[in-house]
């Protein structure tokens, strides 16, 4: 180094050094293994995007460790800055490897095979006497090799040629690696310009694809233009079928797809594994549940009349999910004092009574004379959420049971019979509907990702299984015609080449019209 302080590298030198490091296979290999290690962490710690409840639960039970995880981004490994950093570095390293390799491959594809000086110095070498003159012998050899898909170059000065085969190996390997860049482009483009979210539709209702209509969070890409399709999904009916064991057999949402102006486009059945595709969005069956229609009236004044989607309560260990009742909340913020009703739905009342008698949980596969238990609270509503209820500033005033098609008095908690006059507002359980939850997603990158995946696979096969082979043939004049010298080697799959080389020499000799192998064969052997 000519610099006065030899320990300091110039900027140019440092950049060159970083570049060299990135280009080395060792770096790529270490980054690849780091990616694997990071993924292991991501699979062991509950991830917020996959299971937010479990992540929250972990934070509750391990506050200190949880806080550390949260700061280190361990609850969202695959969205963390350091996972992105490893990925980006890996891709930079990949490109740094690929650019010079591609250039070299391009050059060698266009270059003619290089002539050799000493043919008998190669790993495989054989000689044969043939009847043709040297120039003719080489011409025949050229044609034979061409037929076997070798690229052949004749030596302009001597009756000699050089041949090569197996450029597909490097081409395939390059295709495999470049396809990952395409994959990245497809992923970033698709996620960046798309969106995905959940749509909850009660039987008989229509859901419109618009930002405000999504249930919970909607994930929009960074480059999403904000244009939702306005497509309507009218849910005619949801059907679920179970086996007696409680194993689900089929879920189907029978829907009508509507154009933004409300005109029907087509009816469709949406099932698991059978999404609906329309206007660039895809609608998947995600989950389902019960939505009782609840009517609350005070005399002739209707305070509330709507289907309320209930959510299933989490099953404790050993209890089947289907045995759990469903929970929902109705809030009446306009009343003074404010009123909230906490409801528990048993779609199959037989299960309710049986559990009451025996204590054993029973799976509810169908709806059968459904009932709801309820608790009425009065006071001040502090929790604005439509699905949860905070009763810390409220008092329980009544509780009771209401069956489908009946009404209850909210003041006393008693079921109303014909002719009864209620003391307060009434709670009616008019109907029991089902609701269906769809995942709606727009991802325009999918075709790109698919093409990339196909290229990865197609490139992989020659990259692993084909091999580069080089062969040289020379014809020296001799008494009977010429002495054909054949040399060659393979860069990969060398054991197979030994046989291939022997067959090739036989084929050359046959094409040259050599005498029978036994009489003229002069085995020189393999080096």
């Amino acid at each position, binding site marked *: 180094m000519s610099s006065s302080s030899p320990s300091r590298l110039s900027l140019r030198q440092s950049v060159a050094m970083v570049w060299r490091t990135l280009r080395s296979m060792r770096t790529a290999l270490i980054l*690849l293994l780091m990616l694997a290690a990071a993924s292991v962490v991501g699979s062991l710690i509950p991830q917020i995007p996959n299971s937010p409840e479990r992540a929250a639960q972990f934070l509750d039970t391990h506050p200190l460790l949880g806080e550390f995880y949260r700061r280190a981004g361990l609850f969202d490994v695959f969205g963390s800055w350091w996972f992105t950093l490893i990925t980006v570095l890996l891709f930079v390293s990949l490109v740094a490897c690929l650019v010079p390799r591609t250039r070299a491959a391009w050059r060698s594809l266009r270059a003619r095979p290089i002539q050799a000086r000493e043919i008998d110095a190669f790993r495989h070498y054989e000689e044969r006497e043939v009847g043709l003159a040297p120039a003719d012998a080489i011409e025949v050899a050229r044609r034979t090799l061409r037929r076997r898909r070798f690229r052949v170059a004749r030596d302009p000065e001597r009756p000699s040629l050089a041949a090569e085969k197996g450029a597909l190996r490097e081409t395939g390997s390059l295709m495999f690696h470049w396809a990952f860049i395409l994959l990245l482009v497809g992923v970033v483009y698709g996620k960046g310009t798309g969106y995905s979210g959940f749509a909850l539709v009660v039987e008989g209702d229509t859901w419109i694809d618009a930002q405000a209509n999504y249930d919970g969070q909607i994930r929009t890409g960074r480059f999403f233009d904000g244009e939702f399709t306005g497509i309507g999904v009218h849910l005619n009916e949801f059907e679920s079928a179970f086996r007696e064991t409680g194993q689900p057999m089929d879920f189907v949402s029978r829907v009508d797809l509507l154009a933004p102006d409300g005109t029907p486009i087509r009816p469709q059945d949406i099932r698991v594994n059978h999404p609906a595709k329309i206007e660039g969005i895809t609608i998947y069956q995600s989950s389902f549940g019960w939505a009782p229609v609840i009517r609350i009236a005070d005399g002739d004044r209707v305070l509330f009349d709507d289907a309320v989607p209930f959510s299933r309560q989490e099953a404790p260990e050993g209890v089947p999910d289907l045995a759990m009742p469903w929970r929902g909340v109705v809030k009446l913020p306009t009343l003074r004092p404010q009123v909230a009703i906490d409801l528990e739905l048993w779609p199959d009342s037989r299960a309710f009574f049986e559990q009451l008698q025996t204590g054993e949980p029973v799976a509810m596969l169908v709806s059968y004379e459904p009932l709801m238990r309820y608790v009425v609270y009065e006071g001040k509503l502090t929790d604005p959420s439509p699905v949860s209820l905070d009763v810390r500033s409220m008092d329980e005033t009544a509780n009771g049971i209401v069956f489908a098609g009946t009404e209850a008095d909210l003041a006393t908690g008693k079921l109303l019979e014909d002719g009864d006059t209620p003391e307060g507002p009434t709670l009616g359980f008019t109907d029991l509907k089902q609701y269906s939850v769809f995942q709606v997603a727009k991802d325009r990158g999918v075709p790109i990702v698919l093409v990339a995946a196909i290229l990865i696979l197609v490139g992989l096969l020659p990259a692993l299984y084909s091999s580069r082979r080089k062969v040289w043939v020379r014809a020296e004049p001799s008494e009977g015609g010429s002495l054909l010298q054949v040399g060659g080697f393979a860069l990969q799959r060398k054991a197979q080449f030994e046989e291939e080389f022997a067959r090739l020499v036989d084929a050359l000799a046959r094409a040259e019209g050599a005498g029978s192998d036994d009489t003229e064969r002069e085995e020189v052997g393999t080096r």
Partner: protein
Amino acid sequence: MTTLQWARLSNDAFNVALFAYLGAMVGYFAYLAFGRDGIWKLARAVAFVGLTANLVSIVARGFAAHRVPWGNMYEYSSLLALLVVAGYLVIVEGVYKQRALGGFALMFSVLTMAVAVSFLYVGPGPLVPALNSYWIKIHVQAAIWGSSLFALGGIATILYLVQDRRERSRIDALRAEDPAPIMGGAIDMDAPVDLVGDASDEPALAEGSGRRGVLPPAATLDRIAYRIIAFAFPIWTFAVIAGAIWAQEAWGRYWGWDPKETWSFITWTIFAGYLHARATSGWRGRKAAVIALVGFVALLITYYAVNLWIVGLHSYAK
């Protein structure tokens, strides 16, 4: 035949296969110990009996359940055991003419089936809706074929590491006996050491090397492991891609870092690392083999742990 009879036949054939594999395993280990050709022939015949019974069990299971017989962990395990034994007989004994791996391959299948019948058994029945897709035929098949080959490759890798260690200690012993000349060592530790005849990159795989009941040379085992893993890798790649296509159809996204997806990616990444390591100076040999071994462990986690202990979208495939 009725559904119940098919189910019974499947279970009986499963037990026959398990015990035949167990017997064949003992036979192969006996062959390894005593090196008698007769023992090998007998062990091989018993392995073929097991293979046939295993196949019968799988086919009968399909008739009993009225669907493809690979819809849950028990069925995967049966198919995996079948493919490992078949893969061993066809690839290792057929192509590479090696018999020393037999006991280990059979041991893998015996353990797989024993775990399946003890902990994972479920009666034949229809699939949950999420699995009801023609992709189950493609994705699951590819995953099991890939797994079985990776498993064989993993077994060869373990034996390579064992044999390599043995050969190295033999070199050390030779060194101790015969002091090195003044300049450098008598044997260069970094160069491939020719102790067992042909230690070129493609050692003689045919005649002789598999005859006696000892492990083949490390270089041969390394080569076999590499070949099998290079065969498995594109199949695994295809399985992951097919899984992504199915996930796109079923769950609305081709990739979501679900534990099964994550672990199949980890397995893929590690074996990709292994293939690259073999082409990287300073990583060939033991280091690359250790990566393959880690890949084998990742495969087992992908196969068992994710379905049984880690909650995710693949949990239904218990």
